[in-house]
C-alpha cells in the first residue's frame, strides 16, 4: 500500500527528508492533461511527495528542474485485464496464481502478487505505471476480485484491492449460457433479500456476513463495479438488463460485437474494455470484431478503455501504446485513444492517476514524441513521483550477447 499513516510518514520524513521533500519541475513540456485543460504547450508540471502539486504555476521553485524541450508528457498508461504479477511463465504451474478451481466471488489474488516479477520492468518500457490485475477464477462464472498495482516493482505496490468483481458471461464451453444468468441473478437476489431482511431484524442478532456476502453487498450498492466478460450483442443486452434490475455499476469487457448495440451501451452509460486489434470472428459470439470498432463506439458516446489482446496479456503489456495508435489509424480520435489508456481506466476503476492535474498521483511519462508511434522513445518515467528505470533482464541478456569478451559470456554481467 502506498498509503502511510501519519506516524510512519513522520518517521520516514525524519529518516530521509531529501527524498520526500524534494520537488521536481518538468518544464517546457507538451502536456496531455486528460482533463478539461486539454493539451498544454510549453507547460510546467511540479511534483512533490508523490503528487502533482501544480500545473503551470505562476513561478517555479523546485529542487530539480527537467527541461522537456517540448517533448510530450502524459499520465502513466494503465494496463488492465491481465494477470501481471500473478504469472511469471504461463506454462510453469508453480509460477501461476491467477486462478484456482475453488475461486469464486470472494477470490482475492492480491496476496499472491509478486512485484519482483520480470514482467513488471518490461511493462514499464511501454510507459505503464499502474495495472488493473484480474483473476481468471475457476469453475464458476465468478472469476474473483480485481486489484490495482503500480509498476514500481516495490513490495508495497498493491494500491487497491476488491476493485471490481469479474464475471464470465460469454458462451459456455458446455451446457448453456442461459445457466449463467440463473446463477448470477440467484446470487444477487438472495443477497438483496438478506439485506432487506437485515434491515428489519434486530442488529444484535445479525450474523457476521461472509466475505462473499460482503462482496455481493458492495456490488448491489454500486460500490464496486462488475466487470462482465461478454461478446455477443444479445448477451450484452441481457447483461444490461441485469445491471438495470439490480442497479449494478457495470463494465463490459471483450464485447467484440458491441457495435451492434452501441447506442444501448451508450444510453446505459456503461464503459467497455476492448482490444484495439481484435478483428477476427473467433467464435459465433464475435462475428463483428473489427479494427474500426473502437472509433465507432467512441463516436456513439461510449466510454472506451483499451486493454491488450490475448497474446499481449501481462507479458507484453508494453504494447498498449501501439494498440492505441492502431485504434487511431482506424478511426478513433487521438485524445480518445489517449484517454482509453489513461483517464478512462482510472475513472472506471476508481484509481488515483490517469490525469495530469494538481492533487493527482504523480505517475508520469516523458516521451520523445507521439507516444503511440514506434519511433518514439520513453525518455523518463515517474511512478508515485519517483523516477524509475525501465531496464529489465531482457536488456541484461541483450548486453551480454552483444558485448565482446575474452571470457565465456556467462562472465558478462
Amino acid at each position, binding site marked *: 500500500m502506498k498509503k502511510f499513516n501519519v506516524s510512519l510518514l513522520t518517521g520516514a520524513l525524519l529518516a530521509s527528508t531529501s527524498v520526500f521533500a524534494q520537488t521536481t519541475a518538468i518544464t517546457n513540456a507538451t502536456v496531455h492533461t486528460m482533463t478539461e485543460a486539454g493539451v498544454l504547450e510549453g507547460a510546467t508540471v511540479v511534483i512533490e511527495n508523490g503528487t502533482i502539486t501544480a500545473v503551470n504555476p505562476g513561478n517555479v521553485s523546485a529542487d530539480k528542474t527537467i527541461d522537456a524541450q517540448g517533448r510530450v508528457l502524459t499520465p502513466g498508461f494503465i494496463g488492465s485485464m491481465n494477470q501481471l504479477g500473478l504469472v511469471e511463465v504461463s506454462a510453469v504451474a508453480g509460477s501461476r496464481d491467477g486462478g484456482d478451481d475453488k475461486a469464486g466471488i470472494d477470490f482475492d489474488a492480491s496476496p499472491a502478487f509478486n512485484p519482483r516479477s520480470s514482467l513488471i520492468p518490461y511493462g514499464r518500457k511501454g510507459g505503464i505505471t499502474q495495472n488493473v490485475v484480474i483473476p481468471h477464477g475457476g469453475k464458476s462464472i465468478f472469476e474473483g476480485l480485481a486489484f490495482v498495482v503500480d509498476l514500481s516493482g516495490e513490495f508495497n505496490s498493491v494500491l487497491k484491492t476488491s476493485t471490481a468483481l469479474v464475471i464470465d458471461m460469454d458462451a459456455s464451453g458446455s451446457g448453456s449460457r442461459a445457466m449463467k444468468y440463473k446463477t448470477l441473478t440467484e446470487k444477487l437476489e438472495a443477497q438483496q433479500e438478506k439485506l432487506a431482511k437485515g434491515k428489519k431484524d434486530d442488529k444484535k442478532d445479525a450474523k457476521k456476513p461472509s466475505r462473499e456476502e460482503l462482496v455481493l453487498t458492495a456490488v448491489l450498492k454500486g460500490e464496486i463495479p462488475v466487470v462482465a466478460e461478454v461478446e455477443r450483442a444479445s448477451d450484452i443486452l441481457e447483461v444490461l438488463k441485469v445491471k438495470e434490475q439490480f442497479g449494478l455499476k457495470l463494465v463490459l469487457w471483450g464485447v467484440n460485437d458491441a457495435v451492434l448495440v452501441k447506442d444501448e451501451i451508450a444510453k446505459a452509460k456503461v464503459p467497455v474494455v476492448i482490444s484495439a486489434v481484435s*478483428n*477476427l*470472428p473467433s467464435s459465433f459470439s464475435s462475428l463483428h470484431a473489427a479494427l474500426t470498432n473502437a472509433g465507432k463506439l467512441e463516436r456513439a458516446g461510449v466510454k472506451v478503455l483499451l486493454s491488450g489482446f490475448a497474446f499481449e496479456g501481462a507479458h507484453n503489456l508494453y504494447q498498449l501504446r501501439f494498440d492505441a495508435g492502431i485504434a487511431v489509424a482506424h478511426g478513433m480520435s487521438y485524445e480518445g485513444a489517449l484517454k482509453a489508456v489513461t483517464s478512462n481506466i482510472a475513472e472506471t476503476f476508481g484509481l488515483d492517476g490517469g490525469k495530469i492535474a494538481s492533487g493527482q498521483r504523480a505517475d508520469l511519462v516523458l516521451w520523445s514524441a507521439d507516444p*503511440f508511434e*514506434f519511433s518514439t522513445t520513453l525518455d523518463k518515467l515517474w511512478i508515485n513521483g519517483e523516477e524509475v528505470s525501465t531496464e529489465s533482464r531482457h536488456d541484461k541478456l541483450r548486453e551480454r550477447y552483444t558485448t565482446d569478451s575474452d571470457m565465456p559470456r556467462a562472465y558478462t554481467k
Partner: protein
Amino acid sequence: MQKFKPTAIVLALSTVLLGCQDKGPQKEKVTIEKNPYPSTYQPLSKGSTLITNATVLTGTGERLEETDVLLKDGKISQVGQDLSAQADVTIDAQGKWVTPGIIDVHSHLGAYPNPSVESHADGNEITKPNTAQVWVEHSVWPQDPGFNRAREGGITTLQILPGSANLFGGRSVTLKNVPSPTMQGMKFPGAPYGLKMACGENPKRVYGGKGVAPYTRMGNMAGYRAAWAEASEYKQAWEQYEAAYAAGLNPDAPKRDIRLDTLRGVLDGEILIHNHCYKAEEMAMMIDLSKEFGYHSGTFHHGIEAYKVADLLAENGNCAALWPDWWGFKMEAYDMVPENVAIVDAVKNSCAVVHSDSDTTIQRLNHEAAKIMNTANQAGFSLKEQDAIKWITYNAAKSLGIEEITGSVKQGKQADIVIWDRNPFSVYSKAETVYIDGAKVYDRHDEKYQAVSDFMLGQR
C-alpha cells in the same frame, strides 16, 4: 552420406536383388508422383499498372525515392524514375510507399481458422510423434476469414505449417493469398514443400504425458535420429531400385511409405526443413543432426534464443524466423530479447525473418518489423526501413525457397506489390492497394476489391 556410386550399386544388385529379377521384358517402372495435388492458381487479371513517384523499399536493402514501378503481364516490368511507359492504369503514389508483397513464413491460417470451433482444429495431427505423412494442405479451409484480413495487411504469400505437437508435424504448403474455393487455387506454383519439425517442450509434453516417447529432450533427439536412419534406408532402397531398373533389370519396387516419402524428399534436398526450435543449445544440436544424416537444417522458427547462436546460424546458412517480442508463455520462451532479429541480422550472410504464427499479427508484419527496428536502434543499432523490410519480404522468400520468383521489387519478378498510405513503419500506416502477379487483389478505398469469406457473407 547415403550416396552410392553406380558401380557399387550394380555390384550390390547382382548379389542382393538377383532373386527378384525377371528375365522377361521390364515391368512398368514405379515412380512416385511428387505433385499429386497440383496448383490450379491463375492470376486474377493481366492488366498493366504504372505506379508513379513512390518511395520504394526494394526488399533487398535499397530505398528509392520518387520512383515508378510498372507492373505488366504479372511481372515487375520496369523500376525507375520518370518511366515513359503506358499502362492500363496509372496510380499517382506521391507520398506513398511501395514494398514487395509481405510474406509470412509461419502461419496456420486455414488449418486453425476462425471461428476457432472444435471441428476447425485441423493443424496438429497429435496421434504419433512422427506424422511426416500428413500434408497440411489437406487441412486448409480456404474460406478462413483470416486470409482476407491478412491480405488487407499486405500479405501476398504465406506458408501454412502444421502445428508443433510432433517431432515431425507433416508437410507445409506455400500459398498465394488469393481468394479461391479450393486450396489448389491458392497454391504457389513451383514453391517447394516444407517439413515441419519441432524441438523442445511441445513434443515431450504432448507424448510424455501419454507415457509414449518422447518424454524428455533426449527422447526428442532419439526420435529424430531413428526417423532419419529409417528414411536413409528408404532412400537407399529406392535408389537401388531405380539404378537396377536403369541397368535394364526388372527389380521389384520398394514398398511405398507416404511418411518416408516426405523424409526422403528432405534428404534429396527437395523439401525444406522448417523447425520450431526456441533454444540455443537445441538449434545447435539440430544443425549437427542434419549433418549426421546429410540434409540441411533449414529455417529455425520462433528461435527465442537465436541471438545466442547468431554466428552459428549464419555460418550454417540457416534462416531464423522470429517474433519481435512474444515471450514467457513457456520456459523455452523465457530468454526473449526484443532485439533478437536485429542481432541475428547483423551477422554476415545471415537470414533474419520476422514471422507471425498468429492470425492477428500476420495483419501487421510491417509493425512487427518496426518494433524491432526501433527497439534495436535505441540499443545502438542503426537500422533503416530498407533494412527492416527484408525481414518480411526477401529473407522470408529465401526461407521458403522462392526468392528468385518473389520477395523484392526487381525487374522480372512476380508483381507481388503493396502500396502503403505512408511509411509502413509508422503505427498509423495501412496497406492501400495489394497486387499479386500484377492483379489488384485488395483496395482499401474500393469495396469491389475487398473479398469476403463465404462464412461471413450475410452474417448480421
